């Protein structure tokens, strides 16, 4: 039953995408609007297919229908409910079901959202592109990665359950869907970029149309990556949250190019420049999601959490090649026509800063990509096998990260076109003081070492710049000073800064020890006292855990455990972490005491790292900032590239911060986009009658 329904869903999605492609292609090439309009409707058929197969899969998982191959191989009657749901994305085929579902959802929303503009060839080609991507993923599910194959099972059969590491923490239910929303979400701006390239439409209209899509995808990807880091910190028990593992890099690469795009697109909206570059960034972001899918699903790279080996590698690589050939071909064909009419006047300007930002993000992405695939390239060239470790990534990315922090401090105060030294000195004064204050505080708190101290200073500097912008904007607009792209963006910056500080502190000042304790024994490490109380054995439906009870700082008891899941072939550690705003004490049980011997010692690894919790808080701030940036500000004029007035004669600056330089009427409601007054970076157009000068 579930096999039939699931297969029907896959076939429905596949057919919908195929017929949609044909109908749209004929309609667009022959210029028949009626065909294009009917082609749109197939998006809903694809969505129907996606929903049907997902429901069939979930029903099969929840009812332990082992006649479905995927359930047979990966689920178990003993798996707790939450993880039964999450089992869908705990193995390869099911994760593609989730991917295809989200993709069909995005396709349907595009078809619905642009229903009135569907006969616009740009929208038509964009939808066609989405259908092609749908065709590929539903095709994978119909053929090489079919999760709905039927198997016959003996009565009483019970499956092995998902990988123990994937049924160990509730974040597993949350992290992959967020990540996939991000990955798949980039398909929408990519599709519109292809539409713009095919139609050769010069102009910024499509950019505005897809801006929120891009922000939404980016925000989901951000949350997904941070949730993944959190999961690995809580579950893997080595005290780390980021290991530059190929799978992690696969999610980080599109994030880097996507972040570069979010910044450089503002230059295009404002000045009409960098068009080809922005299109290339969007295409690169999408291509990198497909490349990441290949790297994690083909088994070509060693990784702690690559999916199991399967035959789909060549298919994904073929699709990646197709994407690369088509996008590069289109850019080569259209590039000269789209090229920017403008030019950057001065490097010390907002657009100059965005350009530097893009160079840095591109370099960052290149460094990460190179480190990820370098072992494969070396092996190809001389047959040797090497591995590129964390030291390479840390050494290469640290200067880039610090430079980005510096830019984050300077860029938001720069006006468009050109900045004077006087203006910079004035606007950077108090951010610099904040940086100095943070530095002094860090030194007083005992922080040492050049790199972390530089990071703390720059973080304070950048935080001051973002805070200055937000203070100015909220003084003027109240809560509305927090919404809109520029102000929401500053909130995102604050989140990034919090993460940067937590990252620098936790990696520079981590302390680790392995303690062997007998019951009742107390040890002191890194200012924390740990007392071993004894061992408890707990039995859950899906696992048996042996936990050591460790009292931390004579207060709460924490229970790092070793668990045996299901068939008992693998022993999985479950760390236990005492979290506080200042530092984390992470405990992992390393060796089991012999059973039955209550007086035997246990060996526990203790990792003390400062400020860890701020990584997750920073991630939350970034998510909130993204949401604030998505909120419509309501007063947006159509973009008029290249015609932005370089200087407005209206509006004289106030005497100090908070003074208002005055806005051009009709200027958009995003603070730092304002380049008018000598002192102002507030955003927004005052509502009529509202006093323009505050403070």
């Amino acid at each position, binding site marked *: 039953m579930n096999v039939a329904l699931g297969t029907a869903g896959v076939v429905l999605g596949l057919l919908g995408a195929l017929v949609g492609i044909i109908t749209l292609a004929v309609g667009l090439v022959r210029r028949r609007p009626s065909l294009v309009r009917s082609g749109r409707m197939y998006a809903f058929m694809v969505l129907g297919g996606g929903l049907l197969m997902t429901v069939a899969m979930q029903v099969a998982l929840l009812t332990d229908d082992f006649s479905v191959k995927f359930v047979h191989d990966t689920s178990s009657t003993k798996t707790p409910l939450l993880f039964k749901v999450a089992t869908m994305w705990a193995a390869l085929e099911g994760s593609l079901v989730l991917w295809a579902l989200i993709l069909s959802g995005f396709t349907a929303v595009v078809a619905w959202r642009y229903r009135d503009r569907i006969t616009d060839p740009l929208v038509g080609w964009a939808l066609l592109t989405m259908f092609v991507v749908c065709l590929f993923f539903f095709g994978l599910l119909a053929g090489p990665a079919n999760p709905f194959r039927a198997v016959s099972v003996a009565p009483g059969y019970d499956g092995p359950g998902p990988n123990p590491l994937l049924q160990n923490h509730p974040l597993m239910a949350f992290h992959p869907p967020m990540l996939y929303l991000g990955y798949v979400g980039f398909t929408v701006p990519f599709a519109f970029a292809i539409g713009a390239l095919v139609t050769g439409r010069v102009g910024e209209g499509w950019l505005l149309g897809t801006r929120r899509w891009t922000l939404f995808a980016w925000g989901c990807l951000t949350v997904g990556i941070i949730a993944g880091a959190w999961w690995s910190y809580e579950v893997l028990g080595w005290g780390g949250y980021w290991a530059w593992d190929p799978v992690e890099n696969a999610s980080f690469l599109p994030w880097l190019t996507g972040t570069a795009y979010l910044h450089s697109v503002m230059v295009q909206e404002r000045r009409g420049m960098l068009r080809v570059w922005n299109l290339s960034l969007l295409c690169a972001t999408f291509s990198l999601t497909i490349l990441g899918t290949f790297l994690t699903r083909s088994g070509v790279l060693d990784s702690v959490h690559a999916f199991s080996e399967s035959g789909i590698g060549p298919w994904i690589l073929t699709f990646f090649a197709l994407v690369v050939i088509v996008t590069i071909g289109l850019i080569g064909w259209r590039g000269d026509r789209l090229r920017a009419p403008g030019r950057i006047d001065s490097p010390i300007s907002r657009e100059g800063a965005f350009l530097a930002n893009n160079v840095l993000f591109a370099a960052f992405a290149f460094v990460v990509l190179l480190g990820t695939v370098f072992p494969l390239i070396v092996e190809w060239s001389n047959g040797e096998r090497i591995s590129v470790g964390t030291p390479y990534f840390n050494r290469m990315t640290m200067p880039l990260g610090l430079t980005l922090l510096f830019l984050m401090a300077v860029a938001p105060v720069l006006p468009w076109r050109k900045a004077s030294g006087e203006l910079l000195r004035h606007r950077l004064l108090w951010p610099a003081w904040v940086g100095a204050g943070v530095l002094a505080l860090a030194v007083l708190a005992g922080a040492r070492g050049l790199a972390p101290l530089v990071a703390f200073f720059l973080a304070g500097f950048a935080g001051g710049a973002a805070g200055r912008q937000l203070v100015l904007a909220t003084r003027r607009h109240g809560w509305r000073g927090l919404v809109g792209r520029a102000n929401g963006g500053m909130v995102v910056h604050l989140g990034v800064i919090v993460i940067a500080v937590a990252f620098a502190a936790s990696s520079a000042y981590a302390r680790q020890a392995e303690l062997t304790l007998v019951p009742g024994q107390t040890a002191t490490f890194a200012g924390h006292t740990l007392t071993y109380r004894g061992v408890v054995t707990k039995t859950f439906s899906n696992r048996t855990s042996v936990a050591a009870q460790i009292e931390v700082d004579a207060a709460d008891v924490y229970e790092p455990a070793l668990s045996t899941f299901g068939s008992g072939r693998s*022993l999985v550690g479950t760390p236990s972490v005492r979290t506080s705003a200042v530092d984390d004490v992470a405990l992992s049980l390393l060796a089991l005491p012999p059973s039955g011997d209550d007086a035997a010692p246990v060996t526990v690894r203790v990792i003390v790292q400062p400020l860890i919790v701020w990584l997750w808080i920073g991630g939350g701030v970034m998510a909130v900032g993204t949401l604030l940036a998505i909120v419509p500000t309501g007063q947006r004029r159509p973009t008029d590239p290249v015609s932005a007035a370089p200087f407005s004669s209206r509006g004289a600056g106030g005497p100090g911060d908070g003074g208002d330089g005055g806005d051009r009427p009709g200027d958009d409601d995003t603070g730092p986009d304002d380049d008018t007054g000598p002192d102002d970076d507030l955003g927004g157009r005052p509502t009529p009658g509202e006093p323009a000068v505050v403070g």
Partner: protein
Amino acid sequence: MDVIDDADELAPPRRVAPYVAAAVGVVLLVFIGVLATRKPAEERDQQSPLVGKAVPALSGATLDGGRYDIDNQRGRYVLINFFASWCIPCQLEHPELVQFAQRHEAAGDASVVSVSFQDSEQKIRDFFAQKGGSWPVIAGQNSAAIDFGVAALPESYLVDPNGIVVQKFVGGVRADDVDRTIAEVERLRQGAQP
């Protein structure tokens, strides 16, 4: 609005995009070619330069006071197991090794030898006392792991009766897998000498 359009100052656009795109495209296609010709990591892990070659010298004092030399084991299969008592996958693997050794004990057609890595003799003794197994254990020979190119524990090498390494096992072995490999080697051998 005083519009200053920089486009006016620019030279007429040159046709550069096709060339840049072509260059980027070629690089990416080579990259795709490299990716397409890579074997899966799991398969590469199993490959060892030793497979198909004579087993490296392996001899030394065993824990029970005797001496062991792999060269004296010709005529039967030997499973060389690199392990440590502190390595959790090794602890989990151990019952499979016991099972394998027991299966072949009577016939004497295959044996196991364990080589410890960075471990104390006392801990190894405790390990075997607790988990069973009475085959020879060579301790204190960290150089053996280097000779074999051991990357991570546990790792095992199957040596055929002629002293040729026929298979490398990464991670915990399963008795059934080793027996399957032996059966496969025997089948090939009989095919080659009808």
